[in-house]
């Protein structure tokens, strides 16, 4: 095969071959070395377990619980953070007065409020949603504030010269200009929400994917644990890809595809 042919083949190689080849190598290596461990499972066993979880529907039940908590927590925490962030971005006085409180509250790790939320809501989806809302509120607040503060000053000047009243300067210029960066903030926030949801489930809450993982681990069924981990990876990937696609669709033509 000539150099040119090799190049053509190399260029045609898809990226999904890499994880697949990786799993294949692990399978072969584990079978060849015949290692035995409670923490390991063959990729083939994991695949079988994943298939089993899909056919008996358990994986969808667990996913619905985790996604459900995210679907409640993110809109609550995100919307509050968004509104306050816009306000702080627009009003220097409000920003100055709020800065100390924000810097005091923000460093609290979201998992540290698990006991508090358990006291208030008990166990279940509400307590998890509350922790997610708390975790999402801060990054959304700060990123939205920065998005509004980062609006091109020239655009604000244009608005002033055109004689737009303050309210219209905000609705016609500042907010639309901040929207792409607010959307990026939403993407980051959703990533955080998934982390916090699974952490809460592993640490305390007996629902969702996190609880399924810790249960599988405690009952010495590593193949089920791995199956859920693979499922989480796929879930996270799908979430991010769909948000990127949405970003392109919403802002692509106007913002020159620069915002990924």
């Amino acid at each position, binding site marked *: 095969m000539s150099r040119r042919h090799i190049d053509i083949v190399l260029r045609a190689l898809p990226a999904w071959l890499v994880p697949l080849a990786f799993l294949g190598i692990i399978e072969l290596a584990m079978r060849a070395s015949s290692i035995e461990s409670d923490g390991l499972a063959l990729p083939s066993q994991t695949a079988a377990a994943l298939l089993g979880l899909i056919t008996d529907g358990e994986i969808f039940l667990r996913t619905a619980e985790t996604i459900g908590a995210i679907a409640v927590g993110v809109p609550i925490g995100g919307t509050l953070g968004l509104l306050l962030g816009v306000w702080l971005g627009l009003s220097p006085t409000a920003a100055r007065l709020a800065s100390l409180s924000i810097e005091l509250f923000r460093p609290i790790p979201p998992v540290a409020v698990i006991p508090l939320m358990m006291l208030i809501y008990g166990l279940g989806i509400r307590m998890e949603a509350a922790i997610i809302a708390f975790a999402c509120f801060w990054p959304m607040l700060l990123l939205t504030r920065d998005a509004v503060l980062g609006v*091109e000053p020239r655009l604000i000047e244009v608005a002033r*010269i*055109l004689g737009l009243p303050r309210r219209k300067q905000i609705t016609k210029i500042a907010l639309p*200009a901040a929207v792409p960066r607010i959307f990026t903030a939403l993407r980051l926030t959703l990533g955080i929400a998934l982390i916090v949801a699974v952490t809460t489930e592993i640490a305390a809450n007996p629902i969702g994917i996190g609880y399924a993982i810790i249960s599988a681990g405690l009952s010495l069924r590593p193949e089920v644990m791995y199956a859920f981990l693979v499922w989480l990876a796929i879930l996270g990937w799908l979430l991010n890809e769909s948000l990127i696609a949405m970003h392109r669709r919403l802002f692509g033509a106007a913002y*020159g595809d620069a915002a990924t």
Partner: protein
Amino acid sequence: MNKTSSRLAPAAEACAQPAIAFDGVRLDFGGKCVVDGLSFTVAPGEFACVVGPSGCGKTTLLRLVTGLLSPTRGEVRRLGVTVDGPSRDVAIVFQDYGRALLPWRTAAGNIALALEAMGVPRLARAERVAALLDKVGLAGHGDKYPAQLSGGMQQRVQIARCLAQGPRVLLMDEPFGALDALTRQALQDEIARLVRDSGATVLFVTHDLDEAIYLGDRVFALQANPGRLAEVIDVGLPRPRDQLRTREHPEFLRLRHVLFDHVQKTH
């Protein structure tokens, strides 16, 4: 003139007033004197160009006319009235068209912004936007976003947005500085034509001496540290001007020498 007659004939009175008047203007910014002792007037309908080394306060001068900046001392008047803030009578074309246009709005949407600010009803806007697009040579490009237009076309959009205001004073801050030579020449001729048609008074800042002479009725040469007026040159070249013939005119060459010597001296 008593109060009654001035109310009856506002137009006549405005004509007698200079369109722009600087009266002993000084501006300090951040503890530094940016411009000092600026006194000059620009007549209605006049095309005045401003040249000078960087840091001589050319852009500051325009911002003082818009009312985005207020003088520390002295007074700036537009059409006889002391400037105390932006007015729809005054439009400004920025050099950085890429940052002055709303990227999420199409060319038509950007032009419509000026009409929305003036409270023009939605139905009347489309027609006026189409006319303005046509006027600046962008007919058929109205539904494109700025990112899809070339630099020259984006600058045309900005010019159209300014014209939409129907300004009596048009300020231009090195509007063609970022464009290639051919686009620049085409836009120079177009802006001369558009301004003549609209009757607006123009204050045009540029670092290009040839451009200043080619476009201007008068050229103000500024000097730096602090920015002050060094020389005013009357340009008596016939109009309409022509990229080849005007630039070969003996008077053009003479003025070019005068300005060049001046800039050399003060640099």
